[in-house]
């Protein structure tokens, strides 16, 4: 068993573990979980979960007395809770509640409800931990209840009251936000909501009251009828579904105030399509892709599109569009390219860094439209450093360079005030020179009636 290449995130649950073999992910089931596994398989519940789109489908590839090996459907890009927009986070929380209710109705219960058990696949949240199911015994409370609150409910509530940034809180609290802390942080008026009073304040109080009561067998027995547990799930579902976030960000309605008239806009779209087809790409990462307007130009040509943006509201708008159009090949993600999500947890590899996940996913091409001026002028990143970064991620790069006459660039330069002339190096000639160290220029095209130039670059073999 030890010789298998165990995945660095898979060590918490003794029921089994995930390992990789020649790039393919497998899940090993340990004998300790056989009783549950055989029941889930034999009763057809796994099959029902696959059909309902609740659990990642798998097939059994090997079964011996020492272990069962499962081959789950491949997940193209694994996103984490702290990269989701508000509606993505909500949807993941609702997915977990839905799953638990369905489990109860079929005689099972989720033994854990961590937000890391959910990721996005084909435009929807999906539960990925095949061994998280246990038998439900009548009257038993939900053991993963507190974990659900700490991983899902707490970040969502904090986001509602204090803004989008709160959704990144799991970067700090990998095991969920302590409820006592949440109770202290939420506004006083929250106490008057029956849902918040019971789920947050009372639960935090009871949790600390019984915190020393750990010995098995001595713990207080409590009987919760199944109907009561379902009521808890239903009310949490309603409450979370109705949660709204009121925070405006600077990029809203970005495209209505850009430097483009309709003709230039169409020209840019045609150009991107032509280049994309020219290099036979079908896997795209769109950096600074805002609400996905330009990614969608390539939607019908692509297997997979990852659209990242620093603005959570733009990402959220993008996700709402994915849901409305039932798009299966676009994944919106909140990300700051000059401060990408690091690796966290044990050895810093339990949850991989964003850049590592991008590299491993082998995208054909990256798009960086109307981004370089933000990286260079807002982030102060020199051209050679941003070129090196892009070259480390994908073999091709479609990049747009807005020159100094562009109104956005002008605005950013003016905001540098007396340091403005420190940025004299920001011009087309220098850009091309520095990027040519890492890339070959395959195509170069000025967009008519703008001060912007498009490049198709190919990474140099080092």
């Amino acid at each position, binding site marked *: 068993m030890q010789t298998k290449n165990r995945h660095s995130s898979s060590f918490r649950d*003794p029921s089994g573990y995930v390992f990789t073999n020649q790039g393919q992910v497998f899940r090993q089931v340990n004998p300790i979980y056989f009783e549950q596994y055989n029941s889930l398989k034999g009763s057809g519940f796994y099959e029902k979960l696959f059909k309902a789109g609740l659990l990642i489908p798998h097939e059994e590839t090997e079964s011996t007395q020492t272990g069962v090996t499962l081959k789950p459907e491949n997940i193209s890009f694994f996103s984490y809770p702290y990269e989701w927009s508000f509606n993505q986070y909500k949807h993941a929380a609702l997915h977990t509640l839905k799953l638990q209710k369905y489990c109860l109705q079929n005689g099972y219960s989720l033994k854990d409800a961590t937000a890391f058990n959910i990721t996005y696949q084909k435009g929807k949240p999906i539960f990925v931990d095949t061994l998280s199911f246990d038998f439900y015994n009548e009257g038993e409370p939900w053991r993963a209840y*507190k974990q659900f609150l700490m991983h899902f409910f707490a970040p969502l509530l904090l986001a509602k009251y204090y803004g989008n940034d709160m959704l990144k809180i799991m970067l700090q609290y990998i095991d969920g936000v302590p409820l006592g802390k949440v109770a202290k942080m939420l506004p006083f008026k929250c106490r008057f909501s029956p849902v918040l009073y019971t789920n947050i304040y*009372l639960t935090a109080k009871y949790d*600390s009251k019984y915190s020393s009561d750990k010995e098995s067998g001595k713990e207080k027995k409590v009987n919760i009828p199944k109907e009561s547990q379902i009521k808890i799930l*239903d*009310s949490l579902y309603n*409450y979370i579904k109705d949660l709204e976030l009121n925070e405006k960000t600077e990029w809203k309605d970005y495209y209505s105030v850009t430097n483009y008239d309709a003709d230039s806009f169409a020209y840019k779209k045609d150009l991107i399509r032509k280049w994309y087809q020219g290099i036979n790409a079908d896997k795209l990462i769109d950096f600074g892709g805002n609400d996905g307007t330009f990614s969608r130009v390539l939607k019908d040509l692509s297997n997979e599109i990852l659209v990242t943006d620093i603005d959570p509201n733009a990402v959220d708008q993008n996700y709402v569009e994915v849901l409305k159009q039932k798009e299966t090949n676009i994944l919106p993600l909140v990300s700051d390219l000059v401060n990408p999500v690091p690796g966290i947890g044990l050895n810093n590899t339990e949850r991989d860094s964003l850049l590592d996940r991008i590299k491993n996913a082998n995208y054909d091409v990256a798009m960086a439209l109307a981004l370089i001026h933000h990286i260079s002028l807002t982030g102060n990143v020199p051209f050679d450093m941003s070129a090196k970064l892009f070259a480390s991620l994908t073999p091709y790069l479609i990049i747009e360079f807005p020159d100094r006459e562009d109104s956005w660039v002008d605005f950013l330069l003016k905001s540098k005030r007396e340091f403005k002339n420190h940025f004299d190096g920001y011009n087309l000639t220098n850009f091309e020179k520095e990027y040519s160290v890492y890339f070959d220029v395959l195509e170069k095209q000025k967009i008519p009636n703008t001060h912007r130039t498009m490049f198709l670059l190919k990474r140099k073999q080092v």
Partner: protein
Amino acid sequence: MSHILLYFDPGTGALIVQFLVAIGASIALFYKRISMKLKSIFGKKQEEDLLGDIDIEEKSDADKE
């Protein structure tokens, strides 16, 4: 039986409190029902439901349960 599989602390208090949480849930669900009724009486337009319902619509072949 299933206790071996429990690899994190569910928190005794968080188990006991579910009895009270269920009461809060009943109150919330009761108000939700009333407000839904009122909305339908006054014909308030429903927004497009993108996140779906908690209940799984089982396919016809699952009727045997």
